[in-house]
């Protein structure tokens, strides 16, 4: 057991996967000698060679497409897109190929690939480096979309993603990369995909969230605890396919639901969660479902980004409003 940041946990998971399975390769821009711009792949090329840790040309569509071709002939590629804002050229590959290859060939070919990308705001980065457009990806049939919220989750979920027989997009909240540490056991043990985690039990209100917002929701919950409001926090972790049961069981218990995400509100993944609760959990609701999200604006440049991202105060105030609704 060692205390790790999220970036160290990701690095440990990649090294573990490459060490145990010679078919795992890592590819992307600057992932080799440089170890990735965030150092997620630090030291991997030294250890596993430049043939398995591939510095690609600056070609995002290529990275996505290489993964498809590699995966279909038996490799397990882990591609890195340097920032989510640069992922869009390879959405063609995800929608048109990676997710359909198994269906198109009736199982003759498949696509066990992982596409990693940092995402989200909060690190004072330049334009296009702060997007969180996970809902676009979660809309794609045949895909898995996984988002860790802590170093241990990053380690266990990334291992699970690499071992999964189908394509996975793995989105890493940039601002958690180095801002929190926790004990991670590098024992090769994966965490389950398609499962939500109740990271804080509570009685009065359920908060469903993921990624960097989990920490903010937990902070809001601690504050509200002092005011006598008991908040249950559900870390969704896998957005597609998502864990309906855990959400519905929690809402059945609390009767109140708040969905929190950093992404813009309209058509955000919170809308899907709200629809689920309205469809299947309406009778247990004691208050309207609420959403605290980024605004339907362009993600502002760093001077205003703290006003864009849901703060723990905004989250707490929404929870309070829903808790006191009668």
């Amino acid at each position, binding site marked *: 057991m060692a205390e790790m940041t999220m970036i160290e946990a990701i690095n440990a998971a990649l090294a573990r996967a490459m060490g145990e399975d010679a078919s795992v*390769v890592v590819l992307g821009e600057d992932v080799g000698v440089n170890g990735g711009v965030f150092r997620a792949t630090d030291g991997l090329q030294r250890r596993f060679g430049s*043939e*398995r840790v*591939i510095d*690609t*040309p600056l*070609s995002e*569509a*290529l990275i*996505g*497409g*290489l*993964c*498809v*071709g*590699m*995966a*279909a*002939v*038996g*490799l397990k*590629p882990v591609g890195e897109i340097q920032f989510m804002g640069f992922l869009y*050229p390879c959405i*063609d*590959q995800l929608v*048109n*190929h990676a997710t359909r*290859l*198994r*269906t*198109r*060939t*009736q*199982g*003759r*070919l*498949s696509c066990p690939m992982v596409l990693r990308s940092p995402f989200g705001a909060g690190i004072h980065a330049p334009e296009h480096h702060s997007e969180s457009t996970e809902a676009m990806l979660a809309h794609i*049939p*045949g895909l898995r979309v996984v988002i860790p919220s802590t170093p241990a989750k990053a380690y266990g979920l990334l291992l699970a993603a690499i071992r999964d*027989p*189908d394509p996975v997009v793995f989105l890493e909240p940039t601002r958690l990369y180095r801002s929190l540490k926790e004990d991670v056991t590098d024992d090769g043990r994966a965490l389950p995909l*398609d499962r939500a985690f109740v990271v804080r039990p509570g009685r009065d209100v359920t908060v469903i969230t993921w990624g960097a917002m989990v920490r903010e929701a937990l902070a809001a919950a601690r504050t509200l605890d002092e005011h006598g409001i008991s908040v249950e926090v559900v870390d969704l972790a896998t957005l597609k*396919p*998502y*864990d*309906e049961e855990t959400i519905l069981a929690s809402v059945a218990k609390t009767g109140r639901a708040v969905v929190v995400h950093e992404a813009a509100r309209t058509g955000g993944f919170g809308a899907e969660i709200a629809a689920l609760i309205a469809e299947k959990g309406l009778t247990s609701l004691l208050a309207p479902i609420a959403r605290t999200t980024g605004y339907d604006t362009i993600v502002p440049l760093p001077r205003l980004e703290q006003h864009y991202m849901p703060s723990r105060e905004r989250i707490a105030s929404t929870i309070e409003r829903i808790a006191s609704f009668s």
Partner: protein
Amino acid sequence: MASGDQPAITDWPIVVRLAIERRAYLSPQGDVLAPLPSSASDPKLLIELYRGMVTIRALDVKAVALQRTGRLGTYAVALGQEAVLVGLASAMRGDDVLFPTYRENGALMWRGVTPEELLTYWGGDERGSDFKASRGDFPISIPVGSHAPHAAGAAYAFKLRGEDRVAVCVLGDGAMSKGDVHEAINFTAIHRLPLVFVVSNNRWAISVPERLQSATPTLAQKALAMGVRAWQVDGNDVIAVRASMIEAVARARAGEGASCIEALTYRLGDHTTADDARRYRSDEEVQAAWKNEPIARLRRYLVDTGVWTKLQEEQLLAEVQARMDLAAEHYLALAPRAPASMFGHLYKTLPAAYQAQRRELEEAGGG
């Protein structure tokens, strides 16, 4: 005048000079233009190539007939491009991997994909891409050029594992305008991957002619500029296409890197059965192109060299037509699958979240 006493330099050093050659062995009239390569010395093999091309045309005729009578979906004929398909496929090994587009039915068929499977695919059933013979070949790729990175990825895997397999990626002239194709060729060149790109330049990308697709006199030079060996070949001369492919595949297999063969051909038919080419090109142009078509050319050569007779021709035509009639019969007799089969290969194991949706479909009568 340059400053000082230095004269202006008028002959700067040339850093790179690129050239594209064009290869052909048979004229449109079937006359020999250059000594035939050893790969064309066996008349039996030439007859096989001829049979292959005639079979493709018969498939196209049958498919269009089915489509026009409402029994097949949209279909893309390869009329006039049969030499490219047979030439490239005949140079591949069984464990090589073909990355086809919608116009490569004939190349797949040469590799063992049955006309039944192809009709099943174009008839709107995924089972048609579960090729029973060529298990490793990619399914037909419809988004133009997006399969080029797949070929690069597969070729990278072959090289990494020390396998002597080759990836063959077929592109059209329109695909050479796509960024992902250029990204793939560039990567292929950097890593000297065992890959052959075949650009089947049929002069038309639906209604857009080559002059609006590219300002360069060849498409091959784009690949050459990125560091891949490239040349042009008369794409209606099956002997030339096959010889070029044999050379390119051998280079790839020997670890000498990728090639790009621009096969100059012409799309004699509509883009697909949903297209009407008379809207954008003249009958005169098409009639002129018919004089270059590949099947008559090889037939003239075979007849002139005394290895092909009228009787053999009649037998072959009857045989391929019977084969396509049988294929159509099998295809039309194929019962549709249960609607819930659409969930069958969505993931390796259907996640719990979608099992309920499958039940929903089953309960709606789609069991």
